[in-house]
């Protein structure tokens, strides 16, 4: 039998159900894994008591013969973007240092109600702005993966959900929450060889999740495999009257609906995703993915998403615009950090607090966002970007006339070394080139680990589906997973 720490959500579920181990043993196992992994810098706040309390509740419920929740006995990692009652929440920033919410985000609350416990709050790019975890105010997370060149270059776990990616890949937590604004679940999942799922915009409530770009932010699961993601997403999602953009729809039983037979499904291959300088290994993996899906019974069709090349520029206008406004509340007045120089007035306090409380990438995006919304530039930037966003959505609508799902690579490269791109924001932004269009259109998408590159690093394939058709996305992901047989794991060096 596998060790407990090697198990994911469904493995823990069956182990507890069959009495192989108690939820408490599971919690203790992972609590120990968390404390032993400090060198990865993935966990900002450890919450062993929370995990233990949830485990004890599960054990008690089981002993009493009660029906267990979907996440019963599963201790998870919580991205630090989710406000957690009584547990410090910083979004990886200094400006929120010392902030302890008096409320629980809807997503974390849903997970806890389903029986999950929390191992800790996970490091992330500051305010979810970044693709490498290097913008965290508390130092970057180090990926558990290393290149197979015998060296010990520290690699980026991806971002912004880098802490989530690292703990799941390192088997430090069986699953973790992530959030995805332009690829922040999918890209790190691809970088570390795990499965990450971004649902349709509105499936998961944004209430209590610290906002980056409101019209794009979506929470989702990061876990070992497709089944675990389906289980966890069922627990996370659902209508929330406290979020006006939340979808008032029942949560489908995605796990029960899993099937990898894709007979009758048409998979579109968007030609515009063949970008310049794409590593041949990724190109080859994509081709391999096409073969796997054919093998699963799907029909492959070439489709065109003509406005794809405008997606990234539009995203880097819309997301910063919203962020510049969303982050205005961090002003030193009511909570978090306050920098009040001697004799300072209100404006001076704002300036000093925001100067020392925000990191360079956050400042960059606030400035971009402020600029594109300014009088005289609004129409040229923001209005144009919104038009592009509409065109991109229409591209997808058009594609759905000839296919049901799209297959693309998740990211244009494997994980890079920490520091390799941190001086070049534009190169960093290109990481999102395959994930941003579906974010702009609010579509569900999955990243499934599908192979290793020549350096022994994981590569992911992305499946994008129609709005609300998470089931087909899960199913195609499962078909890929079964055929890819991805079992590689990072060797424990930490």
């Amino acid at each position, binding site marked *: 039998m596998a060790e407990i720490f090697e198990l994911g959500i469904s493995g823990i579920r069956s182990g507890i159900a069959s009495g192989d181990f108690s939820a408490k043993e599971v919690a203790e196992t992972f609590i120990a894994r968390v404390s032993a992994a400090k060198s990865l810098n993935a966990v900002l706040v450890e919450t062993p008591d929370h995990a233990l309390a949830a485990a004890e509740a599960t054990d008690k419920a089981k002993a009493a013969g009660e029906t267990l929740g979907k996440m019963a006995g599963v201790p998870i990692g919580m991205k630090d973007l*989710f*406000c957690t009652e009584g547990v410090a*929440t910083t*979004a990886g920033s200094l400006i*929120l240092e010392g*902030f302890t*919410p*008096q*409320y629980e*985000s809807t997503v974390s609350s849903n997970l806890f109600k389903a029986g999950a416990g929390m191992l800790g709050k996970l490091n992330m790019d500051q305010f979810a702005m970044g693709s490498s975890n290097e913008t965290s105010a508390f130092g970057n997370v180090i990926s558990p993966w290393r290149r197979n060149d015998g060296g010990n270059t520290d690699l980026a776990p991806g971002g912004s959900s880098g802490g989530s990616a690292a703990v799941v890949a390192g088997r430090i937590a069986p699953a973790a929450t992530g959030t995805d604004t332009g690829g922040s679940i999918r890209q790190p999942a691809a970088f570390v060889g795990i499965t990450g799922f971004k649902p349709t915009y509105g499936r998961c409530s*944004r*209430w*209590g*999740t*610290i*906002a980056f*770009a*409101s*019209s794009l932010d979506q929470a989702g699961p990061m876990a070992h495999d497709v089944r675990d993601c389906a289980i966890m997403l069922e627990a996370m999602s659902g209508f929330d*009257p*406290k*979020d*006006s*953009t939340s979808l008032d729809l029942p949560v489908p039983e995605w796990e029960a609906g899993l099937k990898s037979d894709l007979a009758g499904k048409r998979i579109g291959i968007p030609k515009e995703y063949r970008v310049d300088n794409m590593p041949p290994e990724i190109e080859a993996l994509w081709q391999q993915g096409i073969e796997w899906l054919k093998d699963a019974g799907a029909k492959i069709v070439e489709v065109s998403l003509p406005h794809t090349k405008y997606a990234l520029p539009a995203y880097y206008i819309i997301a910063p*615009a*919203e962020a*510049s*406004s969303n*982050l*205005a*509340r961090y*002003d030193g*007045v*009511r*909570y978090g950090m306050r920098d009040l120089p001697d004799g300072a007035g*209100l*404006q001076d306090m*704002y300036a000093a607090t925001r100067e020392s409380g925000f990191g360079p990438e956050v400042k960059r995006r606030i400035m971009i966002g*402020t600029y594109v*919304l*300014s*009088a005289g530039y*609004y129409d040229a930037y*923001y209005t144009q970007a919104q038009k592009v966003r509409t065109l991109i959505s229409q591209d997808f609508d058009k594609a759905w006339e000839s296919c049901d799902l799209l297959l693309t690579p998740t990211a244009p490269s494997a994980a890079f070394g920490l520091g390799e791109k941190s001086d070049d924001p534009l190169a960093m932004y290109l990481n999102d080139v395959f994930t941003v269009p579906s974010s702009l259109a609010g579509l569900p998408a999955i990243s499934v680990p599908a192979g290793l590159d020549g350096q022994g690093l994981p590569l992911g394939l992305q499946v994008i589906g129609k709005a609300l058709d998470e089931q087909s996305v899960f199913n195609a992901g499962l078909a890929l997973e079964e055929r890819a047989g991805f079992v590689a794991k990072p060797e424990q060096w930490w």
Partner: protein
Amino acid sequence: MTESTYRIQGGTGEWEVVIGLEVHAQITTNAKLFSGASTEFGAEPNTQVSLVDAAMPGMLPVLNKECVRQAVRTGLAINAQINKYSRFDRKNYFYADLPQGYQISQLYHPIVGEGKIEISLDEKDPDAHGKTIGVERIHIEQDAGKLMHDQHPTMSYVDLNRCGVALMEIVSMPDMTSPKEAAAYVRKLRSVLRYVGSCDGNMEQGSMRADVNVSVRKPGDELGTRTETKNVNSLRYIQQVIEYEAQRQVDVIESGGDIVQETRLFDPDKNETRSMRSKEDAHDYRYFPDPDLLPLELEDDYIFDCKASLPELPDEKRARYKNVLGLSAYNAAVLTAEHETAIWFEELLETTDEPEKIASSAANWLTSELFGALNKMGLSIEKSPVSPQQAAELLGLIADGTISGKIAKQVFEIMLETGDGATKIVEEKGLKQESDTGAIEKVIADVMAANEDKVAQYRGGKDKLFGFFVGQTMKAMQGKANPQVVNELLKKTLGDAG
């Protein structure tokens, strides 16, 4: 319609004033626009603040549907276009009373489009002195909190109770040309809002306040550059601001200066406006659609239901009072200006099956006797110690001749003091009017016997002495004789003998 003749006399001739008002009206509802927090006035600082109002991380706005309903009803009440698609925008700026760092408002797509309000410049003859003021738009937005600068020697305190309270901003066209017109507009707007029930119109408590836009021009010229004086919270101040600003602008222009488009503040103590910030320092509010909120889309049925829920509005009511109930134009205007007065009046009329028979006398009594008494006591009509039903009883006693109008005043005073009914008072105090001809004739005979000389003079042609006999008779009967009967009998008796 009459042209206003308000003019500023400058050294270079006459100047015309052009006024537009942006009225902020707090929507009557128990909860704030986007949070469930209470909106009660006068609560302890920071006791009515939700997580959303304090802009805690991750908090989201949820639209209070009652505010939408009230804005739509208000729009319908001024015959405005209701926009079936509207949207909320963020107005971004930093201030300590604005925790989110933005105000949620409606810039690009307001919920209510163009409408109009009829104002009257002369209560006594409203129809002859009416004017139509255009309303450009009504939109819904959040109020900000309040800074308190007098609580600490070096710090300012912030009270977030008002933060997030729902406001309607009602933007007029620049259609007003005198302080009086502006005051009439605000008065009428307040009346409509109170009829609709969408705002209590209480300017002292800040439920209604105006940004006053003023410019001057030579009659017939293009519009001049305007200034905007913020947050003026009384009818008197609004007029003072206009008077001061118009004169100031004329002085500036005539001494060779230019009017700067700017925001100004009114100082009621010094009766002057002061520059707050000029256009160059104006905030760039970076408006954009709030991504936390979906566009607001209204169905025809919803708008129809809002329309059906409106009460009879002041203009319709005034016309009905005049044309159906036969009231004078003045009484009709006075009784409909405030909804509460009209409600009181109509409750009184409800005591009879034939309201038009008593309407005029009741209206006269209300506008003179009741208003006079309430005024003296400093009470509003809702607090009147005499109920409409009690008033009807009193008026009934006058109508059927039980008491005279003069005695009625006495009875009314006792009613105000004791709260007793008119009939009870008349009986207990023996104030019932004597109409029995036998009794009156007996008294007249006594009076004539005691004043034979005067009788002779009267009969000799001194008609004016008639009043003397009336007075003596009434006095002998302690004022309780029916004056009409006394008159008739005296005429007969004095005439007979002659």
